[in-house]
């Protein structure tokens, strides 16, 4: 076993390498080959040629995508929705975490946490069913309530203007428990000596929250927010697809890059344009992640992704 060099290492680590083999194959097949497949964006796809054998067609797919007039709309929607999700979700989660820590104790903390965490466990399909139960024009609870107060029913599924609010609320609803638990974990790891010292100095509870808890949370918040900003061009497909579906009336306010790519691929079977849109999203996403990570590194080297 004393051979030197690369071959020697291969022999030495043969078992560990074999143990890694399934995962390596998995990521080659499901991640790296599709990554190389990004060249499709510059090709005229044919079934005979496949991903790598189809003829090139330069920037035609991109021209098609940008001239469709949808490119700007889906990019704007994706970014704005994600910014709204980041702001609203984090504010709500931090508030809940602080209250769970300061106000709720033993059994009540458990009870609230259990209720808040519940939406995390259901699929977007089920959320879609719940939404239908609330928003349906004929039977939805919202219209039942409006009706009780003698007001006109509203046609939510055919009115684009309501959807930004609905989607932000739904996103917050599903993520509130998950994030509160994350932030609560960060709060409980704050040094208790600080709280004891504040107590002796006669700080009241609000001073404690604003002078100790929040300042100590800020590093965690900044990191988590920056990492979410890295994913600002990745829409949550499951959410948009199950809440909105293929309802064209709402697209102006609800179509994101992911749903657009999906539709171009499945309903119009336009492999060229959907590849171009996908390429655009991948590059945009990669650039944002690199920038966000660079900022995290400047801020706190240990918490950076790489």
């Amino acid at each position, binding site marked *: 076993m004393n051979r030197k060099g690369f071959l020697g290492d291969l022999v030495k680590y043969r078992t560990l390498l074999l143990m890694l083999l399934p995962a390596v194959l998995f990521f080659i097949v499901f991640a790296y080959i599709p990554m190389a497949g990004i060249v499709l964006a510059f090709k005229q796809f044919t079934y005979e040629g496949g991903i790598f054998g189809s003829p090139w067609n330069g920037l035609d797919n991109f021209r098609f995508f940008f001239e469709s007039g949808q490119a700007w709309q889906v990019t704007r929607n994706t970014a704005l929705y994600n910014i709204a999700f980041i702001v609203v979700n984090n504010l709500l989660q931090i508030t809940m975490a602080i209250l769970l820590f300061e106000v709720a104790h033993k059994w009540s903390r458990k009870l609230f946490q259990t209720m808040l965490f519940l939406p995390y466990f259901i699929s977007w399909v089920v959320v879609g069913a719940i939404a239908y139960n609330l928003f349906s024009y004929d039977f939805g609870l919202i219209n039942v309530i409006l009706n009780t107060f003698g007001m006109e029913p509203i046609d939510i599924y055919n009115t684009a203007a309501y959807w930004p609010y609905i989607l932000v609320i739904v996103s917050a609803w599903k993520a509130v428990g998950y994030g509160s638990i994350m932030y609560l*974990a960060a709060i409980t790891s704050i040094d208790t000596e600080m709280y004891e010292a504040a107590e002796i100095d006669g700080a009241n509870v609000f001073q404690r929250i604003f002078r100790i808890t929040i300042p100590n949370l800020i590093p*965690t918040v900044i990191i988590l927010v920056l990492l979410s900003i890295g994913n600002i061009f990745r829409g949550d497909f499951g959410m948009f697809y199950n809440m909105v579906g293929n309802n064209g009336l709402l697209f102006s306010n609800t179509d994101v890059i992911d749903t657009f790519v999906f539709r171009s691929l499945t309903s119009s079977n336009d492999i060229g344009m959907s590849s171009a849109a996908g390429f655009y999203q991948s590059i945009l996403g990669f650039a944002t992640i690199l920038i966000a990570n660079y900022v995290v590194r400047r801020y706190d080297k240990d918490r950076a992704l790489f």
Partner: protein
Amino acid sequence: MSAQLTSKSPGRTGRDEKLLQILGYILLAAISLFCLVPFILVLSSSLTEESSIIKDGYQLFPSVFSLEAYKLLFEFPGQLIKAYMVTISVTVVGTVVGLFLTSMTAYALARKDFKWRNGFSFFFFFTTLFSGGLVPWYLMIVNYLQLKDTFLILVLPMLLNVFYIIVMKSFMNSIPDAITESAKIDGAGDFLIYLRLILPLTKPALATIGLFIALGYWNDWYHAMLFITNENLMPLQYYLYKMLGNMDGMRKAMVASGAVVNLQIPTESLKMAMTIVAIGPILLVYPFIQRYFVKGLTIGAVKG
């Protein structure tokens, strides 16, 4: 001054404390109820007489109680049972295999004497930064692997998740190296060390990651939507999705199976009953499995 030194238990000072308690409880209760009420609404709707829904819409409490929708579901449960079986099989197979591969990969990466571990770690990690997008991935599966309408495609795509590998690896980093070293001196191979020594020591992490993987499989509808057209391979969530969007098809299937003579199907309450049947198992085990998820998030939050 000296009176200040009597130590007080936190949460008992005075007015401001009371104010925060009151405001805090109100806010916590409001948001918690907001998370819970939709479930109650769906449950009530599924237990409401169809004609009452048609007349007055969905309500928070059934005005006319009825089990009609559930009766109908369980009277002719063919497709529902099939969907349940598919989901259960996919979840069991995916969780067992996925857990094994995740932990085995994590162990190799956690071995500090393994020269190339950083290279391999980056090889896995890079896939979370950059992706080829939906189209090449889709074509890979449909045209090259020919996995459309197979059981395999419901299991494979979610088998390994880089984030779970990282969490598992950081958990294994806390196991003393001495264990591996002394076993090596005794002549045990790497794989045996992993199987016999490391796996039993990582039980808490295995339970946590296993539950995360299982939940992902249970709730997966996306891969079925993309790749499954065969009814015998339709998992529960996707079946629910189809039902919500296509009650007419549902009706035809029921008529064809001889369930109902014609079109008197309580569609609105049926949709909600189907939803309850789809989340039932999750709600039943939720109180018992919740703490594992909390633990997992806590490990994730204070990621080493």
